[in-house]
């Protein structure tokens, strides 16, 4: 069943998390603007709107939502 794989992923991630703990001063790269998860938010939102109105699936990164009568 496909759902089982879905649950499996975060478990693996948490295990990985236990293995690597970076010290705060080693996280310089994550302060970069282009390393933020919300970087290029405007582009992503515009893309989402296009794909939402053209394809059958939506969301994943964020909410798939509604908000448009286009699908």
């Amino acid at each position, binding site marked *: 069943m*496909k759902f089982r794989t879905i649950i499996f992923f975060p478990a693996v991630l*948490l295990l990985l998390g*236990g293995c690597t703990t970076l010290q705060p001063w080693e996280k310089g790269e994550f302060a970069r603007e282009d390393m933020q998860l919300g970087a290029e938010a405007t*582009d992503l939102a*515009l893309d989402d709107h296009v794909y939402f109105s053209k394809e*059958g699936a939506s969301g994943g990164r964020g909410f798939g939502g509604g908000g448009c009568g286009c699908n």
Partner: protein
Amino acid sequence: MQLMPASLSPASQPNEPVNHVADEVNPRLTQAKPDDYVSSSTASTSSTSSTFSTSSTSSTSPAPHRHGITAAICLSSLAMISFDASATETPAVGAADAVNDALIQVPDSDDGSLLARLIDGWAIDAALLWYREDARVQAIEGVVSGTKALSDSESINAKIVLDSLSGASASGAVAQQSAQTFTRPSGKGEYQVAAGDTPLDDTFQDTRLSLSGGWQKTLDTATKVNAGVYGSKEFDYLSLGVNGGIEWGFFKDNTTLSLSGALGYDLFDAVGGRPVPLSAMAIRKDFADEEAFWQAFDSSRERGVGDKRIGELMLGVTQILTKSTLVQFNYGLGYSSGYLNDPYKLVSVLDSGGNASHYLYESRPDSRLKQSAFVLGKTAFRQGVAEYSYRFTLDDWGLDSHTLEGRYRHYFAGKMGPYVQLHLRAYRQQGVDFFTPYLLQGEPVAPHISADYRIGDMDTWTLGLKTGWRLKDGDEIALRLEYYRQLPSGEASSLDGLQGLDLYPELNAAMLQLNYSWN
């Protein structure tokens, strides 16, 4: 130590306390003699736990502030404070103030200051997107969004999107060897589709305005909360929503867990009323007179507007893997119920020769449960950054999809300089169980049918290029060009009437986008 050139270091001359910069812009040092800070006479109530000291120059310490570092620190601080005056001589400062005076006397300066106050402290991003689909839709979309920090731990954001679409979208009916006639959604009038052409609803035109606002707050070093509202309106559609979420950091913030939820309520006020699912489109030529047509048309319509309720939950884990790589995993669950049809979509009913006899309005289930799994990685490089993701979605309509997406940005000449970014996206979906390109006369009609290619089998590709750079004043500008290609697929038909016709037409679109960020 290789800190600074000796040139601009007032602290290097502690014995020359009169510095013309300090003199010019800050009378405090020159007016206030050091003695003011040394032996003030007055009030000294001291509580048990404190010592309040006014050391006097007559104390045992020998001529303290001459050997101390206070004078040097004070001069250095004054040079820092007056950074904007050091380049301009006194008259220039006066001139600048005179300009300010002049501005104050301009009657509408109040509006100016109101605007200035409104956008004060907001970091604004704006984008303009042109979208062009080969034969169908064209659109212009403008976005202005802003973020304002209320404090170190709290911020708000707001966004306005205005888009204008025109053109036509595929109605779901199949192409024919001869011209086809359709009734417009309003019932008033008809339109013709030429032989061999994929039927499009040529009246498709809309303007959508959407507004959203959000709030984020850091409660303590490990917990963040956010909330938002959303509303959008187009001619026939209204959508409202709220969302909220919480984030926790663990293991020195190397792991972040987030939980968020959203609720939405949409109203579909379809042009000409909502068609009754599975009812036949009334076409004038089939009726003796207008009255008979309108009777049939009205009986194919439901009263009232269609509404839709949406609830979504998302659970996310973000994990820092190495000094330059992080991964994110999201699991999303969404449930929508209510009116989920597209009121403008049709399914052709074909006779044994493949010729359309009539058209039915589509019928989708009145609920949909969707799940998604999303994995994203981001890696920082010295000269660039890469982002790659995979998404799997699944729903109880039988639609599942796989999406692979990657972006790589390369900086030329440091991170200020221009960058080039490549974007690739591959998407494959397996359509819903009730997708059918057409129906055959005489065969039983399933309770749910749709010929909307967007929920049929399909592959899509995106190729994008972006370039951007930072301007001298810190603003950023970027230009993006994307090419999008849709390749719907399905079983070929053996019906004579459909030979040589494209049941699953491809679609090509191009997007050009200009971004500007004020910092």
